[in-house]
């Protein structure tokens, strides 16, 4: 899988034990290639979000190491939370501009970048709206725009569409794939939906229940662009079955 690409980030034998004594991750290994779309899939509480936060530097690993072979860590990370996590007191444009503002970027340039990113996610007309005036899907688009505004090489997404209705989720899935193909960023996508992960990813990492580690990896060798035709194809159904089986095996495993 993408062995011709060099890795952008690699987790080596990473473990995470919380202060409460909960072991979230143990012996977790993951290589993510530059430009890859990889999903972490597993039951809730399997530590996939924890792994993502460790990659983002929001949480420190208790053991193991995180390697950035290309020195990409400094090359910026974008993070999309499960909730839109917008500042309610600021309009959409100001929310999207925030990362640049925090980096003391030039104001005019930040405005231009925010406008451009908003246009990319289809929110150009809502720059002056406040988050409470937006629908759930639009809030999430604004959140994605904010993550993209710094032109990160690595985009981390923590179940971003889990709280949305299915119609909106499918739509955002398509938009995300379009963005990914246009921008060619690396995406690590956390989800508990087999169908979503198969639709989006080049590779799915199936995780065990807590403590989380890699149970299986499934390559989804279907060409992009993927669209509604792929969503209803026999290939798609086959991959879904394959991944579901892997997930079923994980759940049937005795807890160590």
């Amino acid at each position, binding site marked *: 899988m993408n062995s011709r690409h060099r890795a952008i980030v690699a987790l080596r034998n990473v473990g995470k034990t919380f202060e409460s004594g909960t072991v979230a991750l143990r012996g977790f290994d993951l290589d993510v290639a530059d430009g890859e779309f990889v999903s972490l899939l597993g039951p809730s509480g399997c530590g996939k979000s924890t792994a993502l936060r460790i990659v983002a*530097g929001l949480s420190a690993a208790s053991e193991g190491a995180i390697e950035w072979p290309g020195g990409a860590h400094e090359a910026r990370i974008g*993070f999309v939370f499960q909730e839109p996590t917008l500042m309610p*007191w*600021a309009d959409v444009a100001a929310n999207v501009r925030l990362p640049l*503002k925090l980096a003391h970027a030039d104001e005019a340039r930040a405005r231009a970048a925010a406008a451009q990113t908003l246009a990319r996610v289809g929110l150009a007309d809502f720059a002056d709206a406040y988050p409470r005036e937006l629908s759930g899907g639009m809030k999430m688009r604004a959140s994605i725009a904010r993550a993209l505004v710094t032109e990160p090489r690595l985009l981390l997404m923590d179940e971003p569409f889990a709280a949305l209705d299915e119609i909106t989720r499918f739509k955002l899935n398509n938009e995300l794939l379009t963005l990914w193909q246009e921008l060619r960023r690396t995406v690590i996508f956390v989800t508990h939906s087999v169908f979503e992960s198969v639709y989006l990813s080049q590779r799915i990492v199936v995780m065990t229940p807590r403590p989380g580690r890699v149970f299986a990896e499934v390559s989804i060798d279907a060409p992009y662009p993927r669209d509604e035709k792929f969503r209803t194809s026999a290939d798609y159904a086959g991959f879904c079955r394959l991944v579901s089986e892997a997930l079923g095996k994980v759940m049937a495993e005795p807890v160590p």
Partner: protein
Amino acid sequence: MIERGLRILLPLLVLVLVIAGWQAIVALNHIPPYVLPAPGLVLSTLISDGALLMHSLWVTLLTTFEGFLLAAIGGIGLAILFSQSRLIEYSLYPYAVILQVTPIVAIAPLLLIYLPQPLAVLACAWIVAFFPVLANTTLGLRSVDHNLIALFELYKASRWQLLWNLKLPSALPQMLAGLRIAGGLSLIGAVVAEIAAGSAGAGSGLAYRIAESGYRLNIPRMFAALLLLSLAGVAIFFALSAASHMILRRWHESAVTRER
């Protein structure tokens, strides 16, 4: 629309009924004005003693405003300090609570001994008003969305950026709620101190007028001063509510009218 009209009309109706009843009781029972003055007499006293009472109102309002301002600065400042350092919070918070739970009526006479009277009155207004600002702002600063904090960390925000761009705006609704309470309390603190100082007799605020009129059995003037005090309290409440509404109206649920 009808409900809105009723909300204004009904309390006005009650007011008219109460005043009419009051007037009737005084007239029918021939109650002398030094026991209970009729509403008409209170109103005419308000006009005849207008200059004196307005001056007193001004003195009390000035104290209230200064107390409120100091409470806002002190409460918000201390809350920010607490949010920056747990050690400072642990050291000082218990004393803020003690200051709050000790009745101000009991502290006022002591303050009057150690401080010149205007300063003692101001100190009382400040003591009662600052705690709600401190408590509410502290709550607000602590209730910041954890994911937003993580986001700021991700983008390497400085302490100052975190405070200015995230914590303070996020705490604004609670802070404003605290200030709204503080406005009324500051007036109460000023009044309590003026009453306590009353016997010393050097003051000229509205509460001092009430105490003084009481000693002189000038009951109509007592009522007139009392009326002005409540009107001042109501005005302060509405002014602060309006300010809070204006600041929050674009984004906070409390200020946004629900569409049905």
